[in-house]
């Protein structure tokens, strides 16, 4: 224990020593092994700190040295304890506070479920509830191990679960099983999902219906969902038996060239609107069925404006009977200015728009072969029209169930 802490616990007193020879008092204290510290002198008064225990024993020394001692200040635990004891209600209140916090902290207030993807968290909380885990129960009554096991048994999709307490919150952490994807085994054809010219066809299952270089339209069958015909073992028996074709799910890769086209335009004169920064606000208060305007804006507020509406409502539990709502409508003044751009800029802008439009219809895995940008020459001085053609190679096959 450091001397400072010991001094604090024992308590210390600042005394003022007044008299002809304060030094004599100091020497007497030193001789009596009484510890003094923090001595300072202000004119004729000598101030010193002394331990509370020693303070009770200095009376004979004061007499002997013919000085007068007065207490100027005190600090330390004994004095604090005295003050606290004088205010019993404060202590009682502090203790009540601590006890209340302790009581409230020993109950569960929230139950959270983390990590669910396919299963709904409600199912897990339901199971937990059956085993007594719900908001408002004592924490000590919860056996997390049994709840974990119960959840594992009740919900087969869950592969691992842990119930954790963090304060008054219970976090049920769940890891779901990942099931292998169920493959559809129903017989199906592969059909084209867009027009194109076949570049390559590899049938993994089924019979190819088209060959390289064919032009197909959307919906044409590319690979038939029939088992490939087995060449007859004996050439002689060929004609007599005709078996109905066996249906399979066709699969394969069908690469085709596909063309996309799109169009974009841009004017040289462009109208730009900007907020000027000036704004008007309108404040409406809804009380029950009535509407009170606290602040109105002139209608119309500006020549050119846009408005924003902010709704403010009280939380649901306070709004059950009597609805109180406020609406704030803010009008921003706009300024329009026309601004001219060069023909080159306009062309770039139009091209960007056209490309953006075409980009949406091209699938991600398509390989782009060529892109040609064409400026449409029409006799319009203020307008640039752009036509964009994109040529890609992509897999155009999609499965189509064979209806039986």
């Amino acid at each position, binding site marked *: 224990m450091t001397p400072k802490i010991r001094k604090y616990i024992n308590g210390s007193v600042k005394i003022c020593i007044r008299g002809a020879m*304060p*030094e004599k008092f*100091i*020497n007497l*204290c*030193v*001789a009596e*092994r009484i*510890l*003094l*510290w*923090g*001595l*300072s*002198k*202000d004119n004729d008064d*000598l101030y*010193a700190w002394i331990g509370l225990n020693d303070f009770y024993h200095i009376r004979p020394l004061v007499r002997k040295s013919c000085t007068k001692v007065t207490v100027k200040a005190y600090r330390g635990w004994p004095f604090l304890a005295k003050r606290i004891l004088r205010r019993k209600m404060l202590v009682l209140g502090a203790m009540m506070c601590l006890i209340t916090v302790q009581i409230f902290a020993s109950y569960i207030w929230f139950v959270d479920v983390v990590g669910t993807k396919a299963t709904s968290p409600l199912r897990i909380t339901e199971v937990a509830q059956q085993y007594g885990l719900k908001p408002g129960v004592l924490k000590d009554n919860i056996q997390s191990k049994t709840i974990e096991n119960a959840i594992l048994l009740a919900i087969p999709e869950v592969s691992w679960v842990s119930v954790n307490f963090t304060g008054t919150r219970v976090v049920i952490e769940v890891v779901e099983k990942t099931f292998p994807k169920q493959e559809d085994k129903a017989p199906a054809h592969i059909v084209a999902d867009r027009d194109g010219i076949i570049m390559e066809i590899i049938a993994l299952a089924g019979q190819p219906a088209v060959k390289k270089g064919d032009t197909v339209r959307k919906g044409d069958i590319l690979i038939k969902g029939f088992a490939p015909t087995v060449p007859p073992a004996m050439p002689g028996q060929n004609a007599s038996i005709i078996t109905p074709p066996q249906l399979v799910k066709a699969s394969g890769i069908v690469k085709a060239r596909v063309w996309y086209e799109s169009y974009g335009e841009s004017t040289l004169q462009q109208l730009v609107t900007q907020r000027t920064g000036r704004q008007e606000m309108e404040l409406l208060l809804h009380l029950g069925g009535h509407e009170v305007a606290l602040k109105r804006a002139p209608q119309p507020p500006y020549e050119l404006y846009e408005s924003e509406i902010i709704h403010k409502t009280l939380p649901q539990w306070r709004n059950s009977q009597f609805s109180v709502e406020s609406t704030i409508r803010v009008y921003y003044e706009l300024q329009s200015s026309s601004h001219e751009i060069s023909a080159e800029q306009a062309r770039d802008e139009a091209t960007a728009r056209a490309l953006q439009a075409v980009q949406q219809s091209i699938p991600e895995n398509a390989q782009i072969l060529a892109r040609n940008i064409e400026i449409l020459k029409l006799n319009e001085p203020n307008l640039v029209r752009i036509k964009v053609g994109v040529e890609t190679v992509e897999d155009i096959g999609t499965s189509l169930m064979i209806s039986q």
Partner: protein
Amino acid sequence: MQRRQKSILQNIANRLDIPQDIVLDLPRITMLGNKQLLIENHKGIIEYTSSLVRVKLNQGELFIHGHNLLLGNLQTEQILIEGTIVEVKYDT
């Protein structure tokens, strides 16, 4: 007689490598810059003001001049003087 005894003691202390302050009952004065002065083995305070401290020693007196002098720690064996020390003077 006393003087002779002292010189004998000093001689012995020198030969045996014993610190002299223990043998001869001398004060040990430690200074930390001009901020702190620790006097061990003193014989009491004679005078104390914020600009002058007089300490009685075995052999004479020690004058400490300075500003805002405080006695930090006062015990039988040692005195700690804090403040700005300007001058330390020995008076035998």
